[in-house]
């Protein structure tokens, strides 16, 4: 089984030379710009902070896709719901971090249950799965509004409000915390897929379900675990988003759109790619907003998607994805 999967992964790092060159060029541009202009530096830092939030949700999307070949349109709502669960735990007296770490296994179970009950019966048809996740989107939104109401609620900021200053630039500890959490999540995920048996089994179940089950992988369970893990990542994303969006049923909706863009931009199969793409998207939006007059606020969203569509036209598998070869 290992040979089945690793042969493909030997080809699969997906970082081609042109993309790497672009990345380096962008990095140099950002560094030089920041040294020259304070406002450039601050916009970049702010863009990275916002991008980290896109990245954290994008990670969950990528994980679900990689583990189950499914796009989950309800990912944002699921993330929002698990954040409300954490909130409820704090209302019952738990400290923020205790509630945070208790929510993760709850989210895992929730993800598994959703996959088994709602997705498994229909997973042979892409259209059916899309529609079921759309139904979940609406259902979860309704349930959360029913239970907790739609008024603004607030949780304690996880990393505190302290702001470090260097040169003319401010770095909020909260933003650094979100960035660090995203990067940590990517590393843990990569470790899971590369080094653990479960990770290997999950990859096999997604890529070659028939062959995998022949060698003893419980394919159905791997898909469910994939959803469970994605729900955990979603909960983390929601909790990282709450300090800036606050707690309301629509809190993840602005993020979801950009997270999709980041996930596709980076390549739906590449966790690291989606994080890098998320960060780049955040910085891009801020810099364009600052320096390009025509790009007024109404165009922010359409611009992000225009960029996305252009990239997809030239490299459909995203910046860091593998080329999809369809065997006849």
């Amino acid at each position, binding site marked *: 089984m290992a040979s089945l999967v690793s042969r493909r992964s030997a080809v699969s790092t997906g970082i081609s030379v042109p993309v790497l060159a672009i990345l380096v060029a962008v990095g140099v541009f950002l560094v030089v710009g920041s040294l020259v202009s304070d406002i450039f530096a601050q916009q970049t830092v702010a863009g990275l902070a916002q991008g980290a939030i896109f990245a954290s949700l994008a990670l969950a999307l990528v994980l679900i896709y990689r583990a189950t070949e499914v796009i989950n349109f309800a990912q944002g709502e699921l993330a929002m719901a698990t954040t409300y669960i954490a909130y409820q735990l704090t209302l019952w007296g738990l400290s923020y971090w205790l509630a945070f770490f208790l929510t993760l296994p709850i989210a895992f179970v929730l993800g598994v249950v959703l996959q088994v009950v709602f997705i498994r019966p229909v997973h042979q048809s892409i259209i059916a799965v899309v*529609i079921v996740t759309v139904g979940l989107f609406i259902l979860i939104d309704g349930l959360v509004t029913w239970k907790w109401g739609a008024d603004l609620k607030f949780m304690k900021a996880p990393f505190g409000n302290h702001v470090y200053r260097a040169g003319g630039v401010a770095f909020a500890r909260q933003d650094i915390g979100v960035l660090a959490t995203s990067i940590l999540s990517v590393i843990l995920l990569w470790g899971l897929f590369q080094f653990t048996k479960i990770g290997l089994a999950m990859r096999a179940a997604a890529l070659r379900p028939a062959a995998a089950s022949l060698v003893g992988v419980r394919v159905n369970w791997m898909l469910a675990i994939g959803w469970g893990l994605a729900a955990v990542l979603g909960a983390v994303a929601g909790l990282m988003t709450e300090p800036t969006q606050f707690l309301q049923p629509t809190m993840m909706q602005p993020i979801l759109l950009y997270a999709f863009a980041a996930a596709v931009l980076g390549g739906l199969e590449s966790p690291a790619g989606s994080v890098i793409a998320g960060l780049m998207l955040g910085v891009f939006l801020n810099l364009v907003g600052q320096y390009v007059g025509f790009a007024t606020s109404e165009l922010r969203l359409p611009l992000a998607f225009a960029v996305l569509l252009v990239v997809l036209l030239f490299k459909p598998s995203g910046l860091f994805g593998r080329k999809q070869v369809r065997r006849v």
Partner: protein
Amino acid sequence: MNARFAGRLVVIAAVALVIALLPFGLTNYHQGLGARVGVYFIAILGLNILTGYTGQISIGHGAFMAIGGYTTAIMSHDHGTNLIATLPLAFAITFVCGLLVGVPALRFSGVYLALATFALAVSVPQLPLKFSKFTGGSNGIRTATAPGNSWLYGVTWACAAIGFVGAWLLLRGRTGRAFRAVRDSELAATSSGVALPIYKTLAFGISAAYAGVAGSLFVLATAGFAQPNEFGIILSLEILIGAAVAGLGSLWGVVVGAVFVGLLPEISASVPVLGSGHGQDVVFGLIVIAVMILLPNGFAGLLRLVESRFKTPIESDSTTS
């Protein structure tokens, strides 16, 4: 062609008769609801042509409805165009937009296409805000006159009837077979000489044109008022859900899908347990999921199941549509 076809024709005629006679027994308010169901009928029909028959997923038909709707509002508001005359105009404009979307869409498939159309659904309603001089921005723009509900009902269902017959004629011919070939196996289609890009793009254009007309009628049903909040992502989701409930790949269930999406808010508003507002969402979401799990081919699939009970042994050999 055969007994089964004649049977379906009778059913269609009966349904059409009911629809034609219904407004006489309905209050003005209910006629308005009936018109709204008709709007969804046309939009779902359009989406079905695309997703049901060529297998291209679109979660973005709300965007085409927005284009059609704003066309009607702006033409009537700025140029006093007759309301009915704006309908073919909306059809033509959204047909072209559909073609423009269909061409790059050739590069995407499956979930990527769903995502791309999702992006469309979210971005297009932003545009009226940017070009607020022409579109009234967030204050919306309204037609010169607002039609009454019985006018709306008649015009909407007349368009629905035309659209239905048009779709049926299209789909039973060569184009329809090409569409189905695209859906079932692109490889087989290409190797038997079906020019994939043409048919896939054509499907997008036609589907968008239907949505455009639906959008015009949607605006007319909203007192002639076009405003960005009317065309949110939920509208696109509703059309997709309606098409799924109707049964993708078949025309026979579209009425049911339209009734489901158009009237469910009415009905679930009176569901006592979950109360107002959010109760609707919960009921809606649950029903959609249940339908997809239990009745994956929607109402049309149910019809086929029922039909198969009545088939004679000989007839059951014939291929389904």
